[in-house]
Protein backbone atom coordinates (compact mmCIF):
# COMPACT_ATOMS: atom_id res chain seq x y z
CA UNK A 1 0.00 0.00 0.00
CA UNK A 2 1.14 3.50 -0.72
CA UNK A 3 1.81 5.86 2.16
CA UNK A 4 2.59 9.34 0.96
CA UNK A 5 4.60 11.46 3.36
CA UNK A 6 7.05 14.29 3.80
CA UNK A 7 10.62 13.93 4.92
CA UNK A 8 11.97 17.16 6.37
CA UNK A 9 15.69 17.71 6.71
CA UNK A 10 16.31 19.79 9.83
CA UNK A 11 19.92 20.14 8.79
CA UNK A 12 18.90 22.01 5.67
CA UNK A 13 15.85 24.02 6.80
CA UNK A 14 16.77 27.67 7.25
CA UNK A 15 13.41 28.72 8.75
CA UNK A 16 12.36 31.02 5.90
CA UNK A 17 8.62 30.17 6.16
CA UNK A 18 8.31 29.78 2.37
CA UNK A 19 6.54 26.44 2.96
CA UNK A 20 4.09 28.18 5.31
CA UNK A 21 3.11 30.91 2.88
CA UNK A 22 2.97 28.66 -0.18
CA UNK A 23 0.83 26.19 1.77
CA UNK A 24 -1.57 28.92 2.77
CA UNK A 25 -1.64 30.36 -0.76
CA UNK A 26 -2.44 27.04 -2.39
CA UNK A 27 -4.87 25.67 0.17
CA UNK A 28 -6.85 28.75 1.11
CA UNK A 29 -8.10 29.02 -2.45
CA UNK A 30 -8.27 25.29 -3.14
CA UNK A 31 -10.29 22.28 -2.04
CA UNK A 32 -9.42 22.73 1.65
CA UNK A 33 -10.09 26.47 1.77
CA UNK A 34 -10.74 28.99 2.96
CA UNK A 35 -8.18 29.22 5.75
CA UNK A 36 -9.55 32.28 7.42
CA UNK A 37 -7.44 35.04 8.97
CA UNK A 38 -8.42 37.46 11.71
CA UNK A 39 -6.55 40.76 12.16
CA UNK A 40 -3.85 39.69 9.70
CA UNK A 41 -2.30 43.19 9.61
CA UNK A 42 -3.19 44.24 13.14
CA UNK A 43 -2.32 43.50 16.70
CA UNK A 44 -3.04 39.89 17.62
CA UNK A 45 -2.87 38.39 14.11
CA UNK A 46 -4.69 35.08 13.99
CA UNK A 47 -5.54 32.50 11.42
CA UNK A 48 -5.67 28.92 10.27
CA UNK A 49 -2.47 27.31 9.05
CA UNK A 50 -1.73 23.73 8.03
CA UNK A 51 1.96 24.19 8.41
CA UNK A 52 3.97 26.26 10.84
CA UNK A 53 7.69 26.74 11.20
CA UNK A 54 8.77 26.85 14.82
CA UNK A 55 12.15 27.65 16.23
CA UNK A 56 13.91 25.92 19.08
CA UNK A 57 17.22 26.60 20.75
CA UNK A 58 19.21 23.57 21.80
CA UNK A 59 22.01 23.68 24.32
CA UNK A 60 23.17 26.33 26.73
CA UNK A 61 24.77 29.61 25.85
CA UNK A 62 27.26 30.00 24.25
CA UNK A 63 27.11 26.42 22.92
CA UNK A 64 23.64 26.81 21.44
CA UNK A 65 22.21 25.82 18.11
CA UNK A 66 19.05 27.07 16.48
CA UNK A 67 16.75 24.41 15.09
CA UNK A 68 14.03 25.53 12.70
CA UNK A 69 11.26 23.01 12.91
CA UNK A 70 8.47 22.91 10.28
CA UNK A 71 5.41 21.17 11.71
CA UNK A 72 2.36 19.89 9.84
CA UNK A 73 0.15 16.81 10.01
CA UNK A 74 2.38 13.74 10.08
CA UNK A 75 -0.20 11.47 8.40
CA UNK A 76 0.23 8.75 11.02
CA UNK A 77 -0.02 5.18 9.82
CA UNK A 78 -2.19 4.53 12.87
CA UNK A 79 -3.86 7.95 13.24
CA UNK A 80 -5.39 8.36 16.72
CA UNK A 81 -7.53 11.26 15.47
CA UNK A 82 -9.55 9.10 13.06
CA UNK A 83 -11.36 6.52 15.27
CA UNK A 84 -12.46 9.16 17.80
CA UNK A 85 -14.36 11.23 15.24
CA UNK A 86 -18.07 10.75 15.99
CA UNK A 87 -19.24 11.49 12.44
CA UNK A 88 -16.61 9.76 10.35
CA UNK A 89 -15.54 13.13 8.92
CA UNK A 90 -11.93 12.37 9.83
CA UNK A 91 -10.55 9.59 7.69
CA UNK A 92 -7.42 8.09 6.21
CA UNK A 93 -7.40 7.52 2.48
CA UNK A 94 -7.05 3.86 1.57
CA UNK A 95 -5.13 4.43 -1.63
CA UNK A 96 -2.37 6.77 -0.48
CA UNK A 97 -2.59 6.98 3.32
CA UNK A 98 -3.32 10.72 3.50
CA UNK A 99 -5.35 11.71 6.58
CA UNK A 100 -8.16 14.07 5.60
CA UNK A 101 -11.28 15.76 6.99
CA UNK A 102 -14.58 15.77 5.15
CA UNK A 103 -15.52 19.41 5.75
CA UNK A 104 -19.18 18.70 4.96
CA UNK A 105 -19.45 16.09 7.73
CA UNK A 106 -17.35 17.74 10.45
CA UNK A 107 -19.42 19.08 13.36
CA UNK A 108 -16.53 21.01 14.90
CA UNK A 109 -16.48 19.11 18.21
CA UNK A 110 -12.65 19.36 18.37
CA UNK A 111 -12.37 15.82 19.76
CA UNK A 112 -9.88 14.83 17.04
CA UNK A 113 -7.59 17.68 18.05
CA UNK A 114 -7.58 16.33 21.60
CA UNK A 115 -6.54 12.97 20.22
CA UNK A 116 -3.55 14.32 18.30
CA UNK A 117 -0.37 14.62 20.38
CA UNK A 118 1.26 16.86 17.77
CA UNK A 119 -1.26 19.71 17.74
CA UNK A 120 -1.49 19.86 13.98
CA UNK A 121 -5.24 20.18 13.66
CA UNK A 122 -6.77 23.64 13.78
CA UNK A 123 -10.41 24.58 14.01
CA UNK A 124 -11.14 27.32 11.50
CA UNK A 125 -12.73 30.20 13.39
CA UNK A 126 -15.04 31.11 10.53
CA UNK A 127 -15.74 27.76 8.87
CA UNK A 128 -16.18 26.12 12.32
CA UNK A 129 -14.77 22.84 11.06
CA UNK A 130 -11.47 21.12 11.76
CA UNK A 131 -8.75 21.78 9.21
CA UNK A 132 -5.43 20.14 8.65
CA UNK A 133 -2.68 19.47 6.14
CA UNK A 134 -3.98 17.55 3.13
CA UNK A 135 -0.54 17.01 1.57
CA UNK A 136 -2.15 19.17 -1.15
CA UNK A 137 -4.37 16.26 -2.09
CA UNK A 138 -6.01 18.31 -4.86
CA UNK A 139 -2.60 18.89 -6.37
CA UNK A 140 -0.78 15.57 -5.97
CA UNK A 141 -3.71 13.65 -7.46
CA UNK A 142 -4.30 16.12 -10.32
CA UNK A 143 -3.47 14.14 -13.46
CA UNK A 144 -3.70 17.27 -15.60
CA UNK A 145 -0.51 18.59 -14.02
CA UNK A 146 2.88 17.41 -15.22
CA UNK A 147 4.48 14.79 -12.98
CA UNK A 148 7.03 17.26 -11.63
CA UNK A 149 4.28 19.52 -10.26
CA UNK A 150 2.28 16.77 -8.57
CA UNK A 151 3.89 17.60 -5.24
CA UNK A 152 2.69 19.53 -2.19
CA UNK A 153 3.06 23.29 -2.46
CA UNK A 154 5.46 23.38 0.49
CA UNK A 155 7.82 20.94 -1.20
CA UNK A 156 7.87 22.92 -4.42
CA UNK A 157 8.40 26.18 -2.55
CA UNK A 158 11.29 25.13 -0.33
CA UNK A 159 14.35 27.05 -1.56
CA UNK A 160 16.82 24.72 0.13
CA UNK A 161 15.08 21.45 -0.81
CA UNK A 162 14.72 20.60 2.84
CA UNK A 163 11.39 18.90 2.12
CA UNK A 164 11.15 15.60 0.28
CA UNK A 165 7.87 14.03 -0.78
CA UNK A 166 7.11 10.45 -1.72
CA UNK A 167 5.92 6.99 -0.75
CA UNK A 168 7.55 5.78 2.45
CA UNK A 169 6.30 2.26 1.81
CA UNK A 170 8.26 1.99 -1.42
CA UNK A 171 11.76 0.97 -0.27
CA UNK A 172 13.37 2.46 -3.37
CA UNK A 173 11.72 5.87 -3.20
CA UNK A 174 13.72 9.03 -2.54
CA UNK A 175 12.09 9.45 0.89
CA UNK A 176 12.70 5.84 1.99
CA UNK A 177 16.30 6.13 0.93
CA UNK A 178 16.70 9.37 2.89
CA UNK A 179 15.08 7.86 6.01
CA UNK A 180 17.25 4.76 5.78
CA UNK A 181 20.56 6.34 4.96
CA UNK A 182 20.35 9.65 6.80
CA UNK A 183 18.83 8.58 10.10
CA UNK A 184 15.23 9.63 9.52
CA UNK A 185 13.13 9.56 12.69
CA UNK A 186 9.54 10.01 13.86
CA UNK A 187 8.21 12.55 16.37
CA UNK A 188 7.09 11.40 19.82
CA UNK A 189 7.64 7.70 19.16
CA UNK A 190 6.44 7.01 22.73
CA UNK A 191 2.79 7.21 21.64
CA UNK A 192 2.96 4.49 19.01
CA UNK A 193 1.17 6.60 16.41
CA UNK A 194 3.73 5.66 13.77
CA UNK A 195 3.82 8.97 11.87
CA UNK A 196 4.46 8.64 8.15
CA UNK A 197 6.31 11.97 8.03
CA UNK A 198 9.92 11.70 9.09
CA UNK A 199 12.57 14.21 10.05
CA UNK A 200 16.25 14.02 9.16
CA UNK A 201 18.39 14.95 12.16
CA UNK A 202 20.59 17.95 12.75
CA UNK A 203 24.20 17.04 12.08
CA UNK A 204 27.53 18.78 12.20
CA UNK A 205 28.43 19.55 8.62
CA UNK A 206 32.15 19.01 8.20
CA UNK A 207 34.32 18.86 5.10
CA UNK A 208 37.44 16.77 5.44
CA UNK A 209 40.33 18.04 3.30
CA UNK A 210 43.48 15.99 3.09
CA UNK A 211 46.90 17.52 2.60
CA UNK A 212 47.43 15.90 -0.79
CA UNK A 213 44.22 17.47 -2.04
CA UNK A 214 45.84 20.87 -1.59
CA UNK A 215 48.90 19.85 -3.58
CA UNK A 216 48.62 19.50 -7.30
CA UNK A 217 50.18 16.20 -8.25
CA UNK A 218 50.50 17.24 -11.88
CA UNK A 219 52.26 20.49 -11.16
CA UNK A 220 55.48 20.61 -13.16
CA UNK A 221 56.22 24.24 -12.44
CA UNK A 222 55.74 23.85 -8.65
CA UNK A 223 54.12 27.25 -8.71
CA UNK A 224 53.30 27.30 -5.00
CA UNK A 225 56.84 26.41 -4.03
CA UNK A 226 58.36 29.28 -5.96
CA UNK A 227 59.70 31.94 -3.71
CA UNK A 228 58.54 35.43 -4.15
CA UNK A 229 61.59 37.11 -5.52
CA UNK A 230 59.99 40.04 -7.20
CA UNK A 231 60.95 43.25 -5.48
CA UNK A 232 58.90 46.37 -5.49
CA UNK A 233 59.60 48.48 -8.54
CA UNK A 234 60.73 45.57 -10.71
CA UNK A 235 59.91 45.85 -14.41
CA UNK A 236 58.38 43.07 -16.49
CA UNK A 237 61.83 42.25 -17.88
CA UNK A 238 63.12 41.60 -14.36
CA UNK A 239 60.59 38.84 -13.75
CA UNK A 240 60.61 37.20 -17.20
CA UNK A 241 61.62 33.54 -17.33
Amino acid sequence: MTQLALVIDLNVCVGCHACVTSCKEWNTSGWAGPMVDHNPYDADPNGTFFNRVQTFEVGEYPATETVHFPKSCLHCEDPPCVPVCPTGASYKREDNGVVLVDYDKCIGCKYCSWSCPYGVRELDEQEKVMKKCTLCIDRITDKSKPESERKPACVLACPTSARLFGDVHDPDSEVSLAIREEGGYQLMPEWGTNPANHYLPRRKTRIKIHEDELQRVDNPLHEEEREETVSVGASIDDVAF
Partner: protein
Amino acid sequence: MHPAFSVIFLTTLLGVAQGLFLALVTGQYYSLANLIPAQDSATFYGMGSFLVLVFLGLGLFSSFFHLGRPERAWRSATMWRTSWLSREVIALPVFMCLVFLYGLAHYMQWNEPMFTIGDDVGIDLTIIIGLFASIAAFVLFICTAMIYASVRFMQEWHHWLTVANYIFLGLTSGFTLAAAFTAWRGIELVNFFGFWAAFFLVAGLVTRGWSLYRNVTLKHKSTSSTAIGVRHNAVVQKSQGSMGGNFNTREFFHGQSEAVLKLVRYTFLVLVFAVPAVLLAAAWATASPYLPMIAFAVQYLGLLFERWYFFAEAKHPQNLYYQSIA
Protein backbone atom coordinates in the same frame (compact mmCIF):
# COMPACT_ATOMS: atom_id res chain seq x y z
CA MET B 1 -6.78 22.09 28.49
CA HIS B 2 -9.03 25.09 28.22
CA PRO B 3 -12.20 24.32 30.19
CA ALA B 4 -15.26 24.94 28.00
CA PHE B 5 -18.39 25.91 29.90
CA SER B 6 -20.60 24.00 27.47
CA VAL B 7 -18.90 20.74 28.44
CA ILE B 8 -18.69 21.66 32.12
CA PHE B 9 -22.48 22.18 32.22
CA LEU B 10 -23.13 19.16 30.01
CA THR B 11 -21.22 16.67 32.17
CA THR B 12 -22.39 18.03 35.53
CA LEU B 13 -26.06 18.32 34.51
CA LEU B 14 -26.07 14.81 33.04
CA GLY B 15 -24.41 13.50 36.20
CA VAL B 16 -27.10 15.07 38.39
CA ALA B 17 -29.86 13.67 36.17
CA GLN B 18 -28.45 10.15 36.12
CA GLY B 19 -27.87 10.22 39.86
CA LEU B 20 -31.38 11.49 40.54
CA PHE B 21 -32.89 8.83 38.31
CA LEU B 22 -30.91 6.08 40.00
CA ALA B 23 -32.06 7.51 43.33
CA LEU B 24 -35.71 7.25 42.24
CA VAL B 25 -35.27 3.65 41.10
CA THR B 26 -33.34 2.79 44.26
CA GLY B 27 -36.22 4.20 46.30
CA GLN B 28 -38.75 2.19 44.30
CA TYR B 29 -36.80 -1.05 44.66
CA TYR B 30 -36.38 -0.51 48.39
CA SER B 31 -40.11 0.05 48.76
CA LEU B 32 -40.72 -3.07 46.68
CA ALA B 33 -38.82 -4.99 49.32
CA ASN B 34 -40.86 -3.14 51.98
CA LEU B 35 -37.74 -1.56 53.42
CA ILE B 36 -39.12 1.96 53.01
CA PRO B 37 -42.68 3.15 52.54
CA ALA B 38 -44.00 3.16 48.97
CA GLN B 39 -44.46 6.54 47.32
CA ASP B 40 -47.17 7.90 45.13
CA SER B 41 -46.57 7.06 41.50
CA ALA B 42 -47.69 10.26 39.85
CA THR B 43 -46.55 12.92 42.30
CA PHE B 44 -43.26 11.34 43.37
CA TYR B 45 -41.96 9.18 40.52
CA GLY B 46 -43.76 11.09 37.77
CA MET B 47 -42.53 14.45 39.04
CA GLY B 48 -39.09 13.01 39.77
CA SER B 49 -38.74 11.65 36.23
CA PHE B 50 -39.81 15.02 34.88
CA LEU B 51 -37.06 16.65 36.94
CA VAL B 52 -34.56 14.13 35.54
CA LEU B 53 -35.66 15.00 32.01
CA VAL B 54 -35.31 18.71 32.73
CA PHE B 55 -31.69 18.22 33.78
CA LEU B 56 -30.97 15.94 30.82
CA GLY B 57 -32.55 18.47 28.47
CA LEU B 58 -30.48 21.32 29.91
CA GLY B 59 -27.36 19.20 29.53
CA LEU B 60 -28.20 18.32 25.94
CA PHE B 61 -28.90 21.99 25.24
CA SER B 62 -25.54 23.11 26.60
CA SER B 63 -23.72 20.40 24.61
CA PHE B 64 -24.71 22.12 21.36
CA PHE B 65 -22.69 25.17 22.35
CA HIS B 66 -19.57 23.02 22.17
CA LEU B 67 -20.09 22.27 18.49
CA GLY B 68 -18.87 24.46 15.67
CA ARG B 69 -21.64 23.13 13.44
CA PRO B 70 -24.53 22.13 15.74
CA GLU B 71 -26.89 21.72 12.76
CA ARG B 72 -24.91 18.63 11.79
CA ALA B 73 -25.04 17.06 15.25
CA TRP B 74 -27.26 14.24 13.98
CA ARG B 75 -24.26 12.87 12.08
CA SER B 76 -22.41 12.18 15.30
CA ALA B 77 -24.17 8.88 15.99
CA THR B 78 -22.52 7.12 13.06
CA MET B 79 -19.13 6.08 14.43
CA TRP B 80 -20.27 4.26 17.56
CA ARG B 81 -17.99 1.33 16.77
CA THR B 82 -14.87 3.35 17.49
CA SER B 83 -15.80 6.65 19.15
CA TRP B 84 -16.93 7.05 22.76
CA LEU B 85 -18.32 10.46 21.84
CA SER B 86 -20.54 8.78 19.28
CA ARG B 87 -21.60 6.19 21.86
CA GLU B 88 -22.58 8.97 24.25
CA VAL B 89 -24.62 10.60 21.51
CA ILE B 90 -26.61 7.34 21.24
CA ALA B 91 -26.74 6.54 24.96
CA LEU B 92 -28.13 9.95 25.95
CA PRO B 93 -31.36 9.85 23.88
CA VAL B 94 -31.87 6.18 24.73
CA PHE B 95 -31.66 7.07 28.42
CA MET B 96 -33.97 10.07 27.92
CA CYS B 97 -36.56 7.85 26.18
CA LEU B 98 -36.43 5.25 28.96
CA VAL B 99 -36.75 7.94 31.64
CA PHE B 100 -39.70 9.37 29.77
CA LEU B 101 -41.35 5.94 29.57
CA TYR B 102 -40.60 5.32 33.24
CA GLY B 103 -42.18 8.62 34.22
CA LEU B 104 -45.12 8.06 31.86
CA ALA B 105 -45.82 4.57 33.23
CA HIS B 106 -45.81 5.98 36.75
CA TYR B 107 -47.89 9.00 35.84
CA MET B 108 -50.47 6.83 34.03
CA GLN B 109 -50.55 4.49 37.04
CA TRP B 110 -49.69 1.41 34.98
CA ASN B 111 -49.10 -0.42 38.22
CA GLU B 112 -50.77 -3.76 37.51
CA PRO B 113 -48.24 -6.48 38.39
CA MET B 114 -47.25 -8.36 35.24
CA PHE B 115 -45.94 -11.27 37.29
CA THR B 116 -44.95 -11.93 40.88
CA ILE B 117 -41.72 -13.11 42.41
CA GLY B 118 -42.31 -15.37 45.37
CA ASP B 119 -45.69 -14.70 47.00
CA ASP B 120 -46.09 -10.98 47.27
CA VAL B 121 -43.50 -9.10 45.19
CA GLY B 122 -45.46 -7.87 42.20
CA ILE B 123 -43.35 -6.76 39.26
CA ASP B 124 -45.07 -4.06 37.23
CA LEU B 125 -44.06 -2.23 34.07
CA THR B 126 -42.31 0.60 35.91
CA ILE B 127 -39.94 -1.79 37.65
CA ILE B 128 -38.90 -3.36 34.36
CA ILE B 129 -38.46 -0.01 32.60
CA GLY B 130 -36.64 1.25 35.69
CA LEU B 131 -34.18 -1.62 35.45
CA PHE B 132 -33.38 -0.95 31.80
CA ALA B 133 -33.19 2.80 32.37
CA SER B 134 -30.79 2.22 35.27
CA ILE B 135 -28.55 0.16 33.00
CA ALA B 136 -28.77 3.01 30.45
CA ALA B 137 -27.81 5.50 33.17
CA PHE B 138 -24.63 3.55 33.94
CA VAL B 139 -23.88 3.09 30.24
CA LEU B 140 -24.19 6.86 29.84
CA PHE B 141 -21.88 7.44 32.82
CA ILE B 142 -19.30 5.16 31.23
CA CYS B 143 -19.66 6.75 27.78
CA THR B 144 -19.31 10.28 29.14
CA ALA B 145 -16.29 9.41 31.27
CA MET B 146 -14.62 7.31 28.58
CA ILE B 147 -14.68 10.26 26.19
CA TYR B 148 -11.99 11.65 28.47
CA ALA B 149 -10.47 8.47 29.88
CA SER B 150 -9.89 7.04 26.39
CA VAL B 151 -7.68 9.92 25.23
CA ARG B 152 -4.34 8.32 25.94
CA PHE B 153 -2.41 11.53 25.32
CA MET B 154 -4.09 13.13 28.33
CA GLN B 155 -2.34 11.10 31.00
CA GLU B 156 -4.27 12.88 33.77
CA TRP B 157 -7.50 11.46 32.31
CA HIS B 158 -6.34 8.15 30.90
CA HIS B 159 -7.20 6.09 33.96
CA TRP B 160 -10.16 4.20 35.43
CA LEU B 161 -10.33 6.82 38.19
CA THR B 162 -11.86 9.21 35.64
CA VAL B 163 -14.78 6.81 35.17
CA ALA B 164 -15.10 6.28 38.92
CA ASN B 165 -15.14 10.04 39.53
CA TYR B 166 -17.84 10.68 36.96
CA ILE B 167 -20.00 7.92 38.44
CA PHE B 168 -19.54 8.81 42.12
CA LEU B 169 -19.80 12.57 41.67
CA GLY B 170 -22.90 12.11 39.51
CA LEU B 171 -24.43 9.77 42.07
CA THR B 172 -23.74 11.98 45.06
CA SER B 173 -25.14 15.08 43.35
CA GLY B 174 -28.19 13.13 42.12
CA PHE B 175 -28.93 11.58 45.51
CA THR B 176 -28.48 14.97 47.18
CA LEU B 177 -31.01 16.37 44.72
CA ALA B 178 -33.31 13.43 45.56
CA ALA B 179 -32.98 14.36 49.22
CA ALA B 180 -33.75 17.99 48.36
CA PHE B 181 -36.69 16.88 46.21
CA THR B 182 -38.19 14.74 48.96
CA ALA B 183 -37.60 17.51 51.49
CA TRP B 184 -39.44 19.94 49.22
CA ARG B 185 -42.35 17.48 48.76
CA GLY B 186 -42.43 16.78 52.48
CA ILE B 187 -41.74 13.07 52.06
CA GLU B 188 -40.11 11.07 54.82
CA LEU B 189 -37.28 9.79 52.63
CA VAL B 190 -34.88 12.71 53.09
CA ASN B 191 -32.57 10.76 55.36
CA PHE B 192 -32.70 7.66 53.13
CA PHE B 193 -31.48 9.62 50.11
CA GLY B 194 -29.26 11.75 52.31
CA PHE B 195 -27.50 8.65 53.61
CA TRP B 196 -26.77 7.37 50.12
CA ALA B 197 -25.72 10.84 48.99
CA ALA B 198 -23.22 10.91 51.85
CA PHE B 199 -22.06 7.38 50.99
CA PHE B 200 -21.31 8.32 47.36
CA LEU B 201 -19.84 11.62 48.55
CA VAL B 202 -17.24 9.71 50.56
CA ALA B 203 -16.61 7.32 47.64
CA GLY B 204 -16.20 10.30 45.31
CA LEU B 205 -13.87 12.01 47.77
CA VAL B 206 -11.68 8.90 47.85
CA THR B 207 -11.48 8.49 44.06
CA ARG B 208 -11.18 12.23 43.30
CA GLY B 209 -8.57 12.63 45.99
CA TRP B 210 -6.72 9.67 44.58
CA SER B 211 -6.79 11.10 41.06
CA LEU B 212 -5.63 14.51 42.35
CA TYR B 213 -2.69 12.81 44.03
CA ARG B 214 -1.99 10.73 40.93
CA ASN B 215 -1.98 13.80 38.71
CA VAL B 216 0.41 15.68 40.97
CA THR B 217 2.90 12.81 40.91
CA LEU B 218 2.39 11.98 37.24
CA LYS B 219 5.41 11.77 34.96
CA HIS B 220 4.62 12.89 31.44
CA LYS B 221 5.78 10.68 28.61
CA SER B 222 6.60 13.43 26.13
CA THR B 223 9.27 16.09 26.51
CA SER B 224 10.52 18.91 24.33
CA SER B 225 13.24 16.52 23.34
CA THR B 226 10.91 13.82 21.97
CA ALA B 227 8.66 16.50 20.49
CA ILE B 228 11.27 17.62 17.98
CA GLY B 229 13.51 14.56 18.15
CA VAL B 230 16.67 16.24 19.38
CA ARG B 231 18.41 14.23 22.07
CA HIS B 232 19.41 17.08 24.30
CA ASN B 233 18.18 18.05 27.75
CA ALA B 234 18.23 21.77 27.03
CA VAL B 235 15.60 22.42 24.36
CA VAL B 236 13.96 25.84 24.59
CA GLN B 237 11.27 27.07 22.23
CA LYS B 238 11.94 30.46 20.69
CA SER B 239 8.97 30.87 18.34
CA GLN B 240 5.85 28.89 17.54
CA GLY B 241 5.03 30.09 14.07
CA SER B 242 2.32 32.56 15.04
CA MET B 243 2.43 35.90 16.75
CA GLY B 244 -1.10 36.29 18.10
CA GLY B 245 -1.80 32.76 19.27
CA ASN B 246 -3.87 30.22 17.39
CA PHE B 247 -6.33 27.39 17.88
CA ASN B 248 -3.68 25.33 19.63
CA THR B 249 -3.01 28.00 22.23
CA ARG B 250 -6.71 28.72 22.73
CA GLU B 251 -7.90 25.12 23.05
CA PHE B 252 -5.13 23.56 25.10
CA PHE B 253 -4.15 26.23 27.63
CA HIS B 254 -6.33 27.42 30.50
CA GLY B 255 -4.31 30.62 30.85
CA GLN B 256 -4.59 30.77 34.63
CA SER B 257 -1.87 31.00 37.22
CA GLU B 258 -0.91 28.23 39.62
CA ALA B 259 -2.49 30.26 42.42
CA VAL B 260 -5.88 30.28 40.65
CA LEU B 261 -5.67 26.53 40.03
CA LYS B 262 -4.90 25.95 43.70
CA LEU B 263 -7.80 28.16 44.73
CA VAL B 264 -10.20 26.30 42.42
CA ARG B 265 -8.94 22.96 43.74
CA TYR B 266 -9.60 23.89 47.36
CA THR B 267 -12.89 25.54 46.42
CA PHE B 268 -14.26 22.41 44.81
CA LEU B 269 -13.03 20.18 47.61
CA VAL B 270 -14.91 22.36 50.10
CA LEU B 271 -18.06 22.87 48.02
CA VAL B 272 -18.48 19.36 46.63
CA PHE B 273 -17.49 17.36 49.69
CA ALA B 274 -17.10 19.29 52.95
CA VAL B 275 -20.10 21.66 52.93
CA PRO B 276 -22.70 19.17 51.60
CA ALA B 277 -21.50 16.55 54.12
CA VAL B 278 -22.04 19.00 56.96
CA LEU B 279 -25.39 20.16 55.58
CA LEU B 280 -26.66 16.60 55.05
CA ALA B 281 -25.65 15.69 58.58
CA ALA B 282 -27.35 18.83 59.90
CA ALA B 283 -30.47 17.98 57.87
CA TRP B 284 -30.51 14.55 59.45
CA ALA B 285 -30.15 16.06 62.92
CA THR B 286 -32.59 18.97 62.56
CA ALA B 287 -35.03 17.61 59.92
CA SER B 288 -34.94 21.01 58.24
CA PRO B 289 -36.48 20.92 54.74
CA TYR B 290 -34.18 23.66 53.46
CA LEU B 291 -30.78 22.19 54.29
CA PRO B 292 -30.87 19.44 51.61
CA MET B 293 -31.81 22.04 49.00
CA ILE B 294 -28.92 24.26 50.06
CA ALA B 295 -26.68 21.19 50.07
CA PHE B 296 -27.58 20.42 46.49
CA ALA B 297 -27.11 24.02 45.33
CA VAL B 298 -23.70 24.25 47.01
CA GLN B 299 -22.62 20.85 45.72
CA TYR B 300 -23.66 21.63 42.15
CA LEU B 301 -21.77 24.91 42.27
CA GLY B 302 -18.77 22.96 43.56
CA LEU B 303 -19.10 20.45 40.73
CA LEU B 304 -18.77 23.30 38.23
CA PHE B 305 -15.46 24.17 39.88
CA GLU B 306 -14.51 20.48 39.96
CA ARG B 307 -15.17 20.03 36.26
CA TRP B 308 -13.31 23.24 35.43
CA TYR B 309 -10.35 21.91 37.35
CA PHE B 310 -10.66 18.50 35.68
CA PHE B 311 -10.03 20.14 32.30
CA ALA B 312 -7.45 22.62 33.54
CA GLU B 313 -5.29 19.98 35.21
CA ALA B 314 -4.92 17.91 32.03
CA LYS B 315 -1.73 18.78 30.17
CA HIS B 316 -1.74 17.91 26.51
CA PRO B 317 1.56 16.88 24.89
CA GLN B 318 0.89 19.30 22.03
CA ASN B 319 1.59 22.12 24.52
CA LEU B 320 5.28 21.28 24.10
CA TYR B 321 5.07 22.86 20.65
CA TYR B 322 3.43 26.03 21.98
CA GLN B 323 5.56 27.07 24.93
CA SER B 324 6.64 30.46 23.65
CA ILE B 325 5.14 32.86 21.16
CA ALA B 326 8.29 34.69 20.11
